[in-house]
């Protein structure tokens, strides 16, 4: 005998042995009303009793309700009719019967004896009938015909709202009073009109008045859940199912539900689920609104690219239509590779493929395509550039010159392509020029900017660079054309005036050396007219004095010197200026010697902050061109500065001194002056930065980490609040300094662990014999040595171990 037959045989054996009441009860408990009814009929036919009748009625009503729920109205009516023919006696059935008959449109068949309801029950039934009259007017009991007219008004109002005819809707609702059974429906229709008009307050004002147990509230709940994700999130399954049905009908697909899943999957970084969901919904979404589809693609692409998730992006690209700007996804892949921490794929490969894609992109015009290709070539140039930088900094000890040269060539080729395709793209030129400057090839940098000027004659960067380039070579007349054009473009800019004044001053020197002293005077007069020499007027007067000396007009020269002395509280800086100008203007050495002697004598006097500042500016400014001639004066100036121990410094003077010392790489003296600056001018970010940098310059392992960190952080805090443009550059450098410090473990720790490893080799103790006490002792020693906290040390250790493993 098979197993199914065995089961049936066991079941029928158990039924044969069970009492009829138990059989029916069991079916009712399982909600198998069909079987319950069948068994109850058999039982009542065979052995009619009060119990059998009771259960027969219960089975009838259960079955009828079940059929109604399943939409089998005719069958439900037939069972209900059978029940009515039985004459209902069971209390629970009597209670449920009116509701059932109302739903089936058989309310008028309700037995008279069953209609002795309480007032509350009657009201409930009237409300129920009102709702039914709107929803299924054909089921309105004839005994409640008065409901039909108002229900039809509600329906008419709903249809008017559907047509966006709000005035017609209002007209239909006008006669429905606040106390009417249809008042809820009135609020619902008004709320629905507000819903369609995106009037949230209007919608809420009406729908918040709905009775939650009635039909209008149920419909409103579905609409809210469909448009408010917070409502849907807490909805039960029945409501969610209605929302899906609504979506299917209105949007031709359950797009909203899918997109809610997508949003959740993305927020949880569950990309496989997100991809699956998007794949399921993308066609429907494209049909509903192509623009929203594209935005969604952009959004998801952006997230994947930003996270550097190349693999998921690759999978995404297989089934999603690409954006017009990126027809084969090469651009997105290139950026994803760049963003990826692991850099498994080479972004250059994808950028080069993208160059080919750009030939045919329809959303760009032909000139735009060319420009775009130029921009991509510039991007490609950055890779070998970064490689060169990395190789130059490499401390592995190997010779990387061949690789560096190869990368430089690649970068130059890429830059050339960028210049060819995007000839006015300034960043390409300035980056290429910076590369040449970094490689100590200023002439090549100047050539690059000259090329830029051919295509962009008003490029401020190019004009400024070329002006400064020629000035640094003492070629004031060559610099003049660029500085003058720069000033024409930026007439109010202080920097443009200074640059032009410097060109005139330098041109004056050139003319003087060519014995064209009249023209030299005129140049100096032009420089003076620009009004930038108010602060260092003595320097201009020194130049005039020297020119007069060259012309043999000693009285005039002496007058200029006297005028210059009037502008200063003491003349130390003036003598240095005269000395420098004598050298620059190639006066006889005897003249220069006079000024040198006076200067050295003045240096022995009491130190003065303003004099120190001025002298530093002079030396720093003129050393660019006259390094050889002026370098012998540097030790004397440094000695003077070392003596400036009790000076109360003006801010600008101290900044000039620090600048000068920084140029000379005099770190220990710079550190002292920077410390002075932090005490005398604590709100100036530069001094804190210099103090931190000077400490860091001792080496990241040797420096006092706490002191360095504190100084750099203070400089950042001050720079963020500052309006001085110099502080912007400082901000970036300070942050880099902090990052460097954070990336390196304390020296003591490195050394100690090195000792442990070394001692392990010859030590009979096992690694595991190093106890917690040993560790604690080592950490304490390191903290004391380098000024770090135990937490900082442990963090570094953790990072170091992470790198190792």
């Amino acid at each position: 005998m098979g197993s199914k037959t065995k089961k049936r045989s066991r079941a029928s054996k158990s039924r044969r042995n069970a009492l009829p009441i138990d059989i029916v009860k069991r079916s009712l408990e399982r909600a198998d009303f069909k079987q319950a009814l069948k068994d109850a009929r058999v039982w009542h036919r065979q052995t009619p009793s009060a119990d059998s009748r009771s259960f027969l009625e219960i089975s009838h009503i259960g079955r009828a309700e079940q059929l109604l729920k399943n939409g089998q109205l005719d069958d439900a009516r037939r069972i209900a009719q059978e029940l009515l023919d039985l004459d209902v006696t069971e209390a629970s059935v009597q209670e449920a019967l009116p509701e059932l008959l109302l739903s089936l449109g058989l309310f008028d068949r309700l037995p008279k004896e069953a209609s002795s309801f309480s007032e509350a029950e009657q009201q409930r039934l009237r409300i129920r009938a009102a709702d039914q009259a709107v929803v299924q007017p054909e089921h309105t009991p004839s005994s409640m015909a008065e409901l039909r007219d108002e229900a039809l008004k509600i329906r008419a109002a709903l249809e008017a709202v559907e047509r966006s005819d709000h005035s017609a809707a209002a007209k239909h609702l006008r006669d429905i009073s606040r106390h009417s059974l249809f008042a809820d429906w009135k609020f619902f229709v008004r709320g629905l009109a507000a819903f369609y008009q995106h009037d949230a307050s209007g919608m809420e004002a009406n729908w918040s008045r709905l009775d939650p147990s009635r039909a209008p509230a149920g419909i409103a709940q579905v609409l809210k859940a469909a448009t408010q994700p917070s409502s849907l999130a807490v909805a039960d399954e029945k409501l969610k199912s209605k929302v899906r049905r609504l979506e299917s009908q209105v949007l031709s697909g359950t797009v909203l539900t899918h997109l809610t899943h997508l949003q959740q999957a993305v927020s949880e970084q569950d990309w496989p689920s997100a991809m699956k969901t998007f794949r399921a919904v993308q066609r429907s979404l494209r049909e509903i609104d192509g623009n929203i589809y594209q935005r969604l693609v952009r959004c998801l692409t952006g997230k994947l690219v930003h996270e550097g998730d190349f693999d998921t992006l690759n999978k995404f690209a297989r089934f999603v239509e690409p954006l017009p700007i990126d027809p084969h996804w090469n651009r997105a892949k290139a950026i994803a590779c760049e963003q990826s921490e692991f850099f498994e794929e080479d972004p250059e490969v994808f950028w080069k493929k993208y160059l080919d894609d750009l030939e045919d992109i329809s959303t760009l015009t032909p000139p735009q395509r060319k420009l775009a290709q130029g921009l991509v070539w510039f991007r490609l140039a950055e890779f070998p550039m970064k490689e060169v930088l990395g190789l130059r900094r490499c401390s592995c000890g190997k010779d990387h010159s061949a690789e560096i040269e190869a990368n430089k060539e690649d970068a130059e080729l890429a830059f050339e392509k960028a210049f060819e395709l995007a000839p006015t793209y300034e960043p390409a030129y300035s980056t290429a020029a910076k590369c040449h400057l970094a490689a100590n090839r200023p002439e090549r940098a100047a050539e690059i900017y000259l090329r830029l000027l051919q295509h962009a004659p008003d490029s401020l960067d190019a004009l400024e660079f070329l002006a400064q380039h020629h000035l640094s070579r003492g070629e004031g007349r060559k610099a003049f054309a660029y500085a003058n054009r720069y000033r024409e473009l930026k007439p109010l800019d202080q920097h443009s005036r200074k640059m032009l004044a410097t060109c005139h001053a330098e041109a004056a020197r050139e003319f003087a050396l060519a014995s064209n002293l009249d023209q030299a005077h005129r140049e100096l007069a032009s420089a003076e007219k620009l009004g930038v020499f108010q602060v260092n007027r003595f320097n201009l007067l020194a130049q005039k004095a020297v020119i007069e000396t060259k012309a043999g007009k000693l009285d005039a020269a002496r007058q200029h010197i006297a005028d210059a002395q009037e502008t200063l509280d003491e003349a130390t800086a003036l003598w240095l200026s005269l000395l420098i100008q004598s050298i620059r203007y190639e006066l006889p050495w005897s003249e220069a010697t006079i000024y040198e002697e006076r200067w050295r004598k003045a240096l022995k006097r009491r130190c003065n902050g303003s004099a120190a500042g001025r002298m530093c500016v002079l030396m720093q400014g003129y050393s660019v061109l006259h390094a050889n001639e002026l370098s012998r004066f540097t030790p004397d100036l440094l000695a003077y500065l070392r003596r400036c121990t009790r000076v109360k410094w003006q801010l600008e003077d101290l900044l000039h001194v620090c600048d000068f010392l920084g140029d000379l790489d005099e770190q220990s003296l710079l550190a002292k002056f920077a410390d002075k600056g932090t005490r005398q001018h604590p709100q100036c970010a530069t001094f804190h930065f210099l103090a931190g940098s000077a400490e860091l310059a001792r080496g990241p392992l040797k420096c006092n980490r706490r002191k360095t960190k504190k100084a750099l952080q203070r400089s950042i805090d001050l720079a963020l609040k500052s309006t001085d443009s110099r502080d912007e550059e400082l901000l970036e450098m300070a942050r880099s300094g902090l990052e460097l410090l954070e990336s390196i473990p304390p020296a003591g720790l490195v050394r100690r662990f090195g000792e442990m490893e070394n001692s392990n080799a010859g030590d009979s103790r096992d690694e595991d014999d190093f106890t917690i006490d040993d560790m604690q002792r080592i950490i304490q020693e390191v903290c004391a040595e380098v000024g770090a906290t135990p937490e900082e040390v442990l963090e570094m250790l953790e990072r170091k171990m992470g790198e190792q493993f």
Partner: protein
Amino acid sequence: MTDPYQILGVPVDVDEPSLRRRYLELVREFPPEQAPERFAEIREAYERLRNPVRRLESQLFEIEHKESLADILGELRSQVQSRRIPTDLLLSFADR
């Protein structure tokens, strides 16, 4: 700087007249004397997009439109809200 398209609330294929119109609307809403930071942000975004080279740079090299999924979904829901639902369908949701 965050996405200039998002700051100005314009699509990536916005044309010059629409861009300018939107910029002027925002400047009226956030004038420099009342909202200096916002104004500066709007100005920078506008300068970026009106300059064809900078705009092309944005299109090529910036991470795509950083619109949130929530914003896009919100718009789609808003679309659903605008569509008129047939009365019979609406009433079919009445069973509680």
